[in-house]
Protein backbone atom coordinates (compact mmCIF):
# COMPACT_ATOMS: atom_id res chain seq x y z
CA UNK A 1 0.00 0.00 0.00
CA UNK A 2 1.39 3.37 -0.93
CA UNK A 3 0.18 6.35 0.94
CA UNK A 4 2.11 9.37 -0.05
CA UNK A 5 2.11 12.47 1.99
CA UNK A 6 -1.00 14.20 0.86
CA UNK A 7 -1.86 17.40 -0.82
CA UNK A 8 -3.67 20.13 0.96
CA UNK A 9 -7.39 20.51 0.87
CA UNK A 10 -9.79 22.17 3.21
CA UNK A 11 -10.35 20.74 6.61
CA UNK A 12 -13.77 19.41 7.46
CA UNK A 13 -13.95 17.41 10.61
CA UNK A 14 -13.58 18.97 14.00
CA UNK A 15 -12.07 17.16 16.92
CA UNK A 16 -15.23 17.44 18.99
CA UNK A 17 -14.14 15.10 21.69
CA UNK A 18 -10.90 16.97 22.11
CA UNK A 19 -12.47 19.72 24.14
CA UNK A 20 -14.17 17.30 26.44
CA UNK A 21 -11.02 15.30 26.93
CA UNK A 22 -8.67 18.01 28.06
CA UNK A 23 -10.81 18.88 31.07
CA UNK A 24 -11.16 15.41 32.56
CA UNK A 25 -8.32 14.72 34.93
CA UNK A 26 -8.21 11.20 36.25
CA UNK A 27 -7.62 10.24 39.84
CA UNK A 28 -4.05 9.00 39.40
CA UNK A 29 -2.19 11.02 36.81
CA UNK A 30 0.17 8.88 34.74
CA UNK A 31 3.14 10.35 32.92
CA UNK A 32 5.76 8.55 30.85
CA UNK A 33 8.95 7.75 32.71
CA UNK A 34 11.13 7.27 29.64
CA UNK A 35 11.02 8.08 25.94
CA UNK A 36 8.09 6.60 24.04
CA UNK A 37 8.76 4.18 21.20
CA UNK A 38 6.43 5.25 18.42
CA UNK A 39 6.47 2.55 15.75
CA UNK A 40 5.72 3.08 12.08
CA UNK A 41 5.01 -0.45 10.79
CA UNK A 42 6.56 0.45 7.42
CA UNK A 43 9.62 1.93 5.73
CA UNK A 44 10.42 5.63 5.88
CA UNK A 45 8.37 7.69 3.44
CA UNK A 46 4.98 5.99 3.57
CA UNK A 47 1.74 7.14 5.17
CA UNK A 48 2.34 5.51 8.55
CA UNK A 49 5.86 6.86 8.70
CA UNK A 50 4.72 10.38 7.84
CA UNK A 51 2.05 10.24 10.55
CA UNK A 52 4.52 9.01 13.16
CA UNK A 53 7.20 11.54 12.30
CA UNK A 54 4.81 14.46 12.02
CA UNK A 55 3.16 13.68 15.36
CA UNK A 56 6.52 13.25 17.08
CA UNK A 57 7.77 16.50 15.65
CA UNK A 58 4.69 18.51 16.63
CA UNK A 59 4.66 17.09 20.15
CA UNK A 60 8.30 17.98 20.55
CA UNK A 61 8.00 21.45 18.99
CA UNK A 62 5.07 22.43 21.13
CA UNK A 63 6.59 20.81 24.20
CA UNK A 64 3.44 18.86 24.94
CA UNK A 65 5.18 15.94 26.62
CA UNK A 66 8.04 15.66 29.10
CA UNK A 67 9.51 12.65 27.33
CA UNK A 68 10.35 12.47 23.65
CA UNK A 69 8.59 10.33 21.03
CA UNK A 70 11.17 8.21 19.17
CA UNK A 71 10.06 7.26 15.67
CA UNK A 72 10.99 3.66 14.92
CA UNK A 73 10.44 1.96 11.56
CA UNK A 74 9.52 -1.72 11.68
CA UNK A 75 8.68 -2.59 8.06
CA UNK A 76 7.43 -5.92 6.80
CA UNK A 77 4.36 -7.92 5.91
CA UNK A 78 2.15 -4.85 5.44
CA UNK A 79 2.46 -4.22 9.18
CA UNK A 80 2.42 -7.82 10.42
CA UNK A 81 6.06 -7.77 11.53
CA UNK A 82 5.56 -4.69 13.69
CA UNK A 83 2.31 -6.01 15.14
CA UNK A 84 3.95 -9.27 16.16
CA UNK A 85 6.65 -7.25 17.87
CA UNK A 86 4.30 -4.92 19.73
CA UNK A 87 2.02 -7.81 20.73
CA UNK A 88 4.90 -9.29 22.74
CA UNK A 89 5.16 -6.09 24.80
CA UNK A 90 2.15 -6.77 26.97
CA UNK A 91 1.22 -3.87 29.23
CA UNK A 92 4.11 -1.64 28.13
CA UNK A 93 2.80 1.93 28.37
CA UNK A 94 5.72 3.32 26.37
CA UNK A 95 4.99 1.61 23.08
CA UNK A 96 2.65 3.02 20.43
CA UNK A 97 2.17 2.45 16.73
CA UNK A 98 0.42 4.12 13.81
CA UNK A 99 -2.54 2.31 12.30
CA UNK A 100 -5.03 2.48 9.41
CA UNK A 101 -7.40 0.09 7.53
CA UNK A 102 -4.72 -2.56 6.89
CA UNK A 103 -4.86 -3.19 10.65
CA UNK A 104 -8.27 -4.75 9.94
CA UNK A 105 -7.66 -6.06 6.43
CA UNK A 106 -4.34 -7.84 6.79
CA UNK A 107 -5.57 -10.06 9.65
CA UNK A 108 -8.81 -10.76 7.75
CA UNK A 109 -6.71 -11.92 4.81
CA UNK A 110 -4.98 -14.31 7.19
CA UNK A 111 -1.58 -12.62 6.89
CA UNK A 112 -1.27 -11.68 10.56
CA UNK A 113 -1.90 -13.68 13.70
CA UNK A 114 -2.80 -10.52 15.56
CA UNK A 115 -5.79 -8.33 14.83
CA UNK A 116 -6.97 -5.00 16.23
CA UNK A 117 -8.51 -6.62 19.31
CA UNK A 118 -5.04 -7.68 20.43
CA UNK A 119 -3.97 -4.07 20.94
CA UNK A 120 -5.10 -1.06 22.92
CA UNK A 121 -6.84 1.55 20.78
CA UNK A 122 -5.64 5.03 21.79
CA UNK A 123 -7.19 7.47 19.35
CA UNK A 124 -8.24 7.99 15.78
CA UNK A 125 -6.37 11.01 14.43
CA UNK A 126 -7.42 11.83 10.88
CA UNK A 127 -8.76 10.46 7.63
CA UNK A 128 -8.56 10.39 3.85
CA UNK A 129 -11.13 9.13 1.31
CA UNK A 130 -11.29 6.95 -1.79
CA UNK A 131 -11.76 8.52 -5.19
CA UNK A 132 -12.71 7.09 -8.61
CA UNK A 133 -10.68 8.39 -11.54
CA UNK A 134 -10.97 7.99 -15.30
CA UNK A 135 -8.91 9.41 -18.15
CA UNK A 136 -9.81 13.00 -19.07
CA UNK A 137 -10.80 11.96 -22.61
CA UNK A 138 -12.94 9.07 -21.37
CA UNK A 139 -16.65 8.89 -22.22
CA UNK A 140 -17.59 8.34 -18.60
CA UNK A 141 -18.89 11.60 -17.13
CA UNK A 142 -20.25 10.28 -13.85
CA UNK A 143 -20.52 7.13 -11.76
CA UNK A 144 -23.71 6.08 -13.58
CA UNK A 145 -21.87 6.02 -16.93
CA UNK A 146 -19.07 3.98 -15.48
CA UNK A 147 -21.25 1.45 -13.72
CA UNK A 148 -23.60 1.05 -16.68
CA UNK A 149 -20.56 0.19 -18.77
CA UNK A 150 -19.15 -2.12 -16.11
CA UNK A 151 -22.44 -3.96 -15.81
CA UNK A 152 -22.56 -4.50 -19.56
CA UNK A 153 -18.96 -5.53 -19.84
CA UNK A 154 -17.51 -6.72 -16.53
CA UNK A 155 -14.11 -7.36 -18.12
CA UNK A 156 -13.42 -3.60 -18.13
CA UNK A 157 -10.50 -3.14 -15.81
CA UNK A 158 -10.39 -1.02 -12.68
CA UNK A 159 -6.89 -0.47 -11.32
CA UNK A 160 -5.85 0.14 -7.74
CA UNK A 161 -2.69 0.48 -5.75
CA UNK A 162 -2.84 -2.60 -3.54
CA UNK A 163 -3.39 -6.37 -3.68
CA UNK A 164 -6.85 -7.92 -4.11
CA UNK A 165 -8.68 -8.03 -0.80
CA UNK A 166 -6.87 -4.98 0.51
CA UNK A 167 -7.96 -1.38 0.84
CA UNK A 168 -8.52 -0.21 -2.73
CA UNK A 169 -10.20 -3.44 -3.79
CA UNK A 170 -12.56 -3.44 -0.80
CA UNK A 171 -13.41 0.18 -1.44
CA UNK A 172 -14.38 -0.35 -5.10
CA UNK A 173 -16.05 -3.70 -4.48
CA UNK A 174 -18.25 -2.15 -1.79
CA UNK A 175 -19.19 0.62 -4.18
CA UNK A 176 -20.01 -1.92 -6.89
CA UNK A 177 -22.30 -3.71 -4.45
CA UNK A 178 -24.02 -0.44 -3.71
CA UNK A 179 -24.42 0.04 -7.47
CA UNK A 180 -26.23 -3.27 -7.69
CA UNK A 181 -23.34 -5.21 -9.18
CA UNK A 182 -21.90 -8.39 -7.88
CA UNK A 183 -18.84 -7.30 -5.87
CA UNK A 184 -16.67 -10.08 -7.23
CA UNK A 185 -17.44 -9.24 -10.86
CA UNK A 186 -15.30 -6.10 -10.83
CA UNK A 187 -12.14 -6.82 -12.81
CA UNK A 188 -9.81 -5.30 -10.25
CA UNK A 189 -6.18 -4.96 -11.40
CA UNK A 190 -3.66 -4.55 -8.59
CA UNK A 191 -0.73 -2.21 -9.32
CA UNK A 192 2.31 -1.66 -7.18
CA UNK A 193 1.01 1.68 -5.96
CA UNK A 194 -1.48 4.46 -6.59
CA UNK A 195 0.97 6.35 -8.80
CA UNK A 196 1.58 3.26 -10.92
CA UNK A 197 -2.16 2.78 -11.38
CA UNK A 198 -2.65 6.41 -12.40
CA UNK A 199 0.16 6.22 -14.97
CA UNK A 200 -1.54 3.21 -16.52
CA UNK A 201 -4.81 5.08 -16.58
CA UNK A 202 -3.18 8.00 -18.42
CA UNK A 203 -1.70 5.58 -20.92
CA UNK A 204 -5.14 4.12 -21.60
CA UNK A 205 -4.21 0.64 -20.41
CA UNK A 206 -7.10 0.46 -17.95
CA UNK A 207 -10.58 2.02 -17.74
CA UNK A 208 -10.67 3.49 -14.26
CA UNK A 209 -8.66 3.75 -11.06
CA UNK A 210 -9.64 3.68 -7.41
CA UNK A 211 -7.21 5.55 -5.22
CA UNK A 212 -6.71 7.83 -2.25
CA UNK A 213 -8.16 11.31 -2.65
CA UNK A 214 -5.12 12.94 -1.11
CA UNK A 215 -2.82 11.18 -3.52
CA UNK A 216 -4.99 12.00 -6.53
CA UNK A 217 -5.61 15.68 -5.89
CA UNK A 218 -2.25 16.68 -7.32
CA UNK A 219 -3.23 14.97 -10.57
CA UNK A 220 -6.51 16.86 -10.98
CA UNK A 221 -7.27 20.38 -12.02
CA UNK A 222 -6.55 22.39 -15.12
CA UNK A 223 -4.75 20.56 -17.94
CA UNK A 224 -5.06 17.29 -16.11
CA UNK A 225 -5.11 13.99 -17.97
CA UNK A 226 -7.45 12.53 -15.38
CA UNK A 227 -10.98 13.22 -14.23
CA UNK A 228 -12.55 12.35 -10.87
CA UNK A 229 -16.02 10.80 -10.94
CA UNK A 230 -16.75 10.51 -7.26
CA UNK A 231 -15.34 10.57 -3.77
CA UNK A 232 -16.23 8.30 -0.86
CA UNK A 233 -16.73 10.99 1.81
CA UNK A 234 -20.09 11.90 3.32
CA UNK A 235 -19.82 15.52 2.34
CA UNK A 236 -17.90 17.20 -0.44
CA UNK A 237 -14.24 17.84 0.22
CA UNK A 238 -12.70 21.26 -0.22
CA UNK A 239 -9.80 22.69 -2.13
CA UNK A 240 -8.92 21.01 -5.40
CA UNK A 241 -11.65 18.44 -4.86
CA UNK A 242 -14.56 20.85 -4.32
CA UNK A 243 -15.98 19.98 -7.75
CA UNK A 244 -15.96 16.24 -7.21
CA UNK A 245 -19.40 14.91 -6.19
CA UNK A 246 -19.67 12.30 -3.46
CA UNK A 247 -20.95 8.79 -4.15
CA UNK A 248 -24.02 9.60 -2.08
CA UNK A 249 -24.85 12.69 -4.13
CA UNK A 250 -24.97 10.43 -7.17
CA UNK A 251 -27.35 8.01 -5.51
CA UNK A 252 -24.85 5.41 -4.33
CA UNK A 253 -25.35 4.87 -0.64
CA UNK A 254 -21.75 4.10 0.24
CA UNK A 255 -18.91 5.80 2.10
CA UNK A 256 -15.37 4.68 2.75
CA UNK A 257 -12.86 6.16 5.19
CA UNK A 258 -9.12 5.73 4.98
CA UNK A 259 -8.63 6.55 8.63
CA UNK A 260 -5.38 6.81 10.55
CA UNK A 261 -4.93 6.44 14.25
CA UNK A 262 -2.69 5.34 17.09
CA UNK A 263 -2.77 2.08 19.01
CA UNK A 264 -0.64 0.82 21.87
CA UNK A 265 0.72 -2.39 23.32
CA UNK A 266 -1.84 -4.94 24.55
CA UNK A 267 -3.44 -4.30 27.92
CA UNK A 268 -1.98 -0.87 28.36
CA UNK A 269 -2.90 0.59 31.77
CA UNK A 270 -6.03 2.72 31.76
CA UNK A 271 -4.20 5.80 33.07
CA UNK A 272 -1.64 5.66 30.26
CA UNK A 273 -4.42 5.50 27.66
CA UNK A 274 -6.02 8.55 29.22
CA UNK A 275 -2.71 10.38 29.19
CA UNK A 276 -2.20 9.75 25.47
CA UNK A 277 -5.81 10.57 24.57
CA UNK A 278 -5.46 13.94 26.23
CA UNK A 279 -2.04 14.51 24.71
CA UNK A 280 -3.18 13.80 21.15
CA UNK A 281 -6.35 15.85 21.57
CA UNK A 282 -4.20 18.73 22.71
CA UNK A 283 -1.79 18.18 19.83
CA UNK A 284 -4.61 18.45 17.30
CA UNK A 285 -5.34 21.93 18.60
CA UNK A 286 -1.84 23.31 18.05
CA UNK A 287 -0.86 25.61 15.22
CA UNK A 288 2.09 23.42 14.29
CA UNK A 289 -0.26 20.49 13.74
CA UNK A 290 -2.71 22.64 11.85
CA UNK A 291 0.01 23.81 9.52
CA UNK A 292 1.51 20.36 8.93
CA UNK A 293 -1.90 18.83 8.49
CA UNK A 294 -2.95 21.45 5.94
CA UNK A 295 0.16 20.88 3.92
CA UNK A 296 -0.23 17.14 3.96
CA UNK A 297 -3.95 17.33 3.13
CA UNK A 298 -5.00 15.56 6.30
CA UNK A 299 -8.51 15.93 7.62
CA UNK A 300 -8.71 15.68 11.41
CA UNK A 301 -11.08 12.98 12.59
CA UNK A 302 -10.36 12.55 16.26
CA UNK A 303 -11.97 9.78 18.28
CA UNK A 304 -11.01 8.81 21.81
CA UNK A 305 -10.08 5.31 22.82
CA UNK A 306 -13.61 3.98 23.42
CA UNK A 307 -15.10 5.51 20.30
CA UNK A 308 -12.13 4.32 18.27
CA UNK A 309 -12.55 0.77 19.61
CA UNK A 310 -16.22 0.72 18.58
CA UNK A 311 -15.33 2.21 15.22
CA UNK A 312 -12.70 -0.48 14.62
CA UNK A 313 -15.22 -3.22 15.39
CA UNK A 314 -17.66 -1.69 12.91
CA UNK A 315 -14.94 -1.45 10.31
CA UNK A 316 -14.09 -5.09 10.82
CA UNK A 317 -17.74 -6.03 10.29
CA UNK A 318 -18.03 -3.90 7.17
CA UNK A 319 -14.82 -5.26 5.65
CA UNK A 320 -15.70 -8.86 6.50
CA UNK A 321 -19.00 -8.57 4.71
CA UNK A 322 -17.35 -7.16 1.58
CA UNK A 323 -14.66 -9.84 1.72
CA UNK A 324 -17.35 -12.49 2.08
CA UNK A 325 -19.15 -11.08 -0.96
CA UNK A 326 -15.87 -11.27 -2.82
CA UNK A 327 -15.33 -14.83 -1.71
CA UNK A 328 -12.00 -13.82 -0.19
CA UNK A 329 -12.86 -14.36 3.46
CA UNK A 330 -10.47 -16.70 5.24
CA UNK A 331 -12.40 -19.53 6.84
Amino acid at each position, binding site marked *: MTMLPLKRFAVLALPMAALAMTTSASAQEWTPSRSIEFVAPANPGGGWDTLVRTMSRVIQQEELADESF*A*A*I*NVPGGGGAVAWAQVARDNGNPHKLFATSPPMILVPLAGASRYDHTDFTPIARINTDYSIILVAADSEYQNLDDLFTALKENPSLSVGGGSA*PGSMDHISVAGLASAAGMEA*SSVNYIPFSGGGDAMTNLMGGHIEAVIGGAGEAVGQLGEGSQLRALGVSSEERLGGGLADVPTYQEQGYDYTFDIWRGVMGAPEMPEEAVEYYEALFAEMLETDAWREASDQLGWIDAYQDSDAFATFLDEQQEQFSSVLTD*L*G*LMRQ
Partner: protein
Amino acid sequence: MTRFNTNQWLALVLALVAAAYLAMAWQIPNFPLPRPVDSDLFPKVLGVSLLLLSACLFFERPGPIAGADQIDQAETQGPLLLTPWARVIVTAIAIAAYAFLLVPLGFVLASTLLCVGLTAYYGYRRHGVNLATSLGVVLALYLTMTRVMDVYLPTGVLPF
Protein backbone atom coordinates in the same frame (compact mmCIF):
# COMPACT_ATOMS: atom_id res chain seq x y z
CA MET B 1 30.10 -48.25 -10.93
CA THR B 2 31.49 -45.04 -12.29
CA ARG B 3 32.00 -42.24 -9.84
CA PHE B 4 30.01 -39.07 -10.35
CA ASN B 5 31.92 -35.95 -11.33
CA THR B 6 31.36 -32.56 -9.69
CA ASN B 7 28.72 -31.45 -12.15
CA GLN B 8 26.79 -34.66 -11.64
CA TRP B 9 26.80 -34.23 -7.88
CA LEU B 10 25.67 -30.63 -8.27
CA ALA B 11 22.99 -31.71 -10.72
CA LEU B 12 21.63 -34.24 -8.25
CA VAL B 13 21.48 -31.68 -5.45
CA LEU B 14 19.78 -29.14 -7.71
CA ALA B 15 17.29 -31.72 -8.93
CA LEU B 16 16.38 -32.45 -5.31
CA VAL B 17 15.92 -28.72 -4.69
CA ALA B 18 13.77 -28.49 -7.80
CA ALA B 19 11.64 -31.42 -6.68
CA ALA B 20 11.10 -29.92 -3.24
CA TYR B 21 10.29 -26.58 -4.84
CA LEU B 22 7.75 -28.19 -7.16
CA ALA B 23 6.15 -30.02 -4.25
CA MET B 24 5.67 -26.67 -2.54
CA ALA B 25 4.47 -25.06 -5.75
CA TRP B 26 1.65 -27.58 -5.99
CA GLN B 27 0.48 -26.62 -2.54
CA ILE B 28 -0.07 -22.96 -3.40
CA PRO B 29 -3.81 -22.44 -2.97
CA ASN B 30 -5.95 -21.30 -5.85
CA PHE B 31 -7.28 -17.76 -5.68
CA PRO B 32 -11.06 -17.76 -5.12
CA LEU B 33 -11.62 -15.32 -7.99
CA PRO B 34 -10.77 -16.66 -11.44
CA ARG B 35 -7.41 -15.42 -12.73
CA PRO B 36 -5.97 -16.14 -16.19
CA VAL B 37 -2.68 -17.00 -14.55
CA ASP B 38 -2.85 -17.89 -10.88
CA SER B 39 -0.09 -17.71 -8.26
CA ASP B 40 1.03 -21.28 -8.89
CA LEU B 41 1.86 -21.22 -12.60
CA PHE B 42 5.11 -19.31 -12.44
CA PRO B 43 6.57 -21.40 -9.60
CA LYS B 44 5.67 -24.56 -11.46
CA VAL B 45 7.39 -23.34 -14.62
CA LEU B 46 10.43 -22.34 -12.56
CA GLY B 47 10.60 -25.71 -10.82
CA VAL B 48 10.38 -27.60 -14.10
CA SER B 49 13.03 -25.34 -15.65
CA LEU B 50 15.38 -26.01 -12.78
CA LEU B 51 14.77 -29.73 -13.14
CA LEU B 52 15.53 -29.62 -16.87
CA LEU B 53 18.60 -27.46 -16.34
CA SER B 54 19.97 -29.81 -13.71
CA ALA B 55 19.55 -32.62 -16.24
CA CYS B 56 21.61 -30.57 -18.71
CA LEU B 57 24.20 -29.95 -16.02
CA PHE B 58 24.39 -33.68 -15.34
CA PHE B 59 25.64 -34.28 -18.86
CA GLU B 60 27.89 -31.24 -19.07
CA ARG B 61 31.56 -32.01 -18.74
CA PRO B 62 32.92 -30.14 -15.74
CA GLY B 63 35.40 -27.41 -16.47
CA PRO B 64 38.27 -26.70 -14.10
CA ILE B 65 36.78 -25.57 -10.82
CA ALA B 66 37.70 -21.97 -10.39
CA GLY B 67 37.81 -21.73 -6.66
CA ALA B 68 39.05 -24.95 -5.16
CA ASP B 69 42.61 -24.81 -6.47
CA GLN B 70 42.97 -21.35 -5.00
CA ILE B 71 42.76 -22.56 -1.43
CA ASP B 72 46.02 -21.89 0.28
CA GLN B 73 47.32 -25.44 0.67
CA ALA B 74 50.14 -24.47 3.01
CA GLU B 75 47.70 -23.14 5.56
CA THR B 76 45.64 -26.31 5.70
CA GLN B 77 48.57 -27.81 7.61
CA GLY B 78 48.45 -25.30 10.48
CA PRO B 79 46.50 -25.50 13.73
CA LEU B 80 42.93 -26.67 13.16
CA LEU B 81 41.36 -23.39 14.21
CA LEU B 82 43.38 -21.43 11.67
CA THR B 83 42.84 -23.59 8.60
CA PRO B 84 41.03 -21.83 5.74
CA TRP B 85 37.75 -23.66 6.25
CA ALA B 86 37.85 -23.11 9.99
CA ARG B 87 38.21 -19.39 9.32
CA VAL B 88 35.06 -19.41 7.19
CA ILE B 89 33.10 -21.40 9.75
CA VAL B 90 34.22 -19.30 12.70
CA THR B 91 33.35 -16.13 10.78
CA ALA B 92 29.91 -17.47 9.95
CA ILE B 93 29.28 -18.38 13.57
CA ALA B 94 30.50 -14.97 14.68
CA ILE B 95 28.06 -13.27 12.29
CA ALA B 96 25.19 -15.38 13.56
CA ALA B 97 26.14 -14.57 17.15
CA TYR B 98 26.32 -10.91 16.22
CA ALA B 99 22.81 -11.06 14.80
CA PHE B 100 21.43 -12.45 18.04
CA LEU B 101 23.44 -10.19 20.33
CA LEU B 102 22.85 -6.98 18.41
CA VAL B 103 19.68 -5.97 20.23
CA PRO B 104 20.59 -7.07 23.78
CA LEU B 105 24.16 -5.68 23.65
CA GLY B 106 23.41 -2.66 21.50
CA PHE B 107 24.83 -1.71 18.15
CA VAL B 108 28.06 -0.05 19.26
CA LEU B 109 29.18 -2.78 21.62
CA ALA B 110 28.22 -5.73 19.40
CA SER B 111 29.78 -4.27 16.28
CA THR B 112 33.00 -3.28 17.99
CA LEU B 113 33.31 -6.71 19.57
CA LEU B 114 32.76 -8.44 16.23
CA CYS B 115 35.18 -6.22 14.39
CA VAL B 116 37.97 -6.36 16.96
CA GLY B 117 37.49 -10.07 17.57
CA LEU B 118 37.57 -11.13 13.95
CA THR B 119 40.48 -8.86 13.08
CA ALA B 120 42.55 -10.36 15.90
CA TYR B 121 41.45 -13.85 14.90
CA TYR B 122 42.53 -13.26 11.30
CA GLY B 123 46.01 -12.66 12.63
CA TYR B 124 46.35 -8.92 13.12
CA ARG B 125 48.56 -8.38 16.12
CA ARG B 126 48.53 -4.63 16.69
CA HIS B 127 45.60 -4.68 19.08
CA GLY B 128 45.71 -0.99 19.88
CA VAL B 129 45.35 0.02 16.25
CA ASN B 130 42.70 -2.63 15.83
CA LEU B 131 40.60 -1.35 18.72
CA ALA B 132 40.99 2.28 17.76
CA THR B 133 40.04 1.76 14.12
CA SER B 134 37.12 -0.56 14.85
CA LEU B 135 35.68 1.66 17.54
CA GLY B 136 36.23 4.74 15.41
CA VAL B 137 34.48 3.34 12.36
CA VAL B 138 31.61 1.86 14.35
CA LEU B 139 31.07 5.06 16.32
CA ALA B 140 31.22 7.18 13.18
CA LEU B 141 28.63 4.97 11.47
CA TYR B 142 26.48 4.89 14.59
CA LEU B 143 26.51 8.64 15.08
CA THR B 144 25.81 9.30 11.39
CA MET B 145 22.86 6.96 11.42
CA THR B 146 21.30 7.96 14.73
CA ARG B 147 22.17 11.62 15.11
CA VAL B 148 22.31 12.90 11.55
CA MET B 149 19.88 10.57 9.78
CA ASP B 150 17.52 10.01 12.68
CA VAL B 151 17.58 6.23 12.17
CA TYR B 152 17.02 4.27 15.34
CA LEU B 153 19.65 1.64 16.20
CA PRO B 154 19.53 -0.49 19.33
CA THR B 155 21.37 1.11 22.23
CA GLY B 156 21.56 -2.02 24.39
CA VAL B 157 23.55 -1.85 27.60
CA LEU B 158 25.28 1.42 26.80
CA PRO B 159 23.43 4.55 27.88
CA PHE B 160 23.41 6.12 24.38
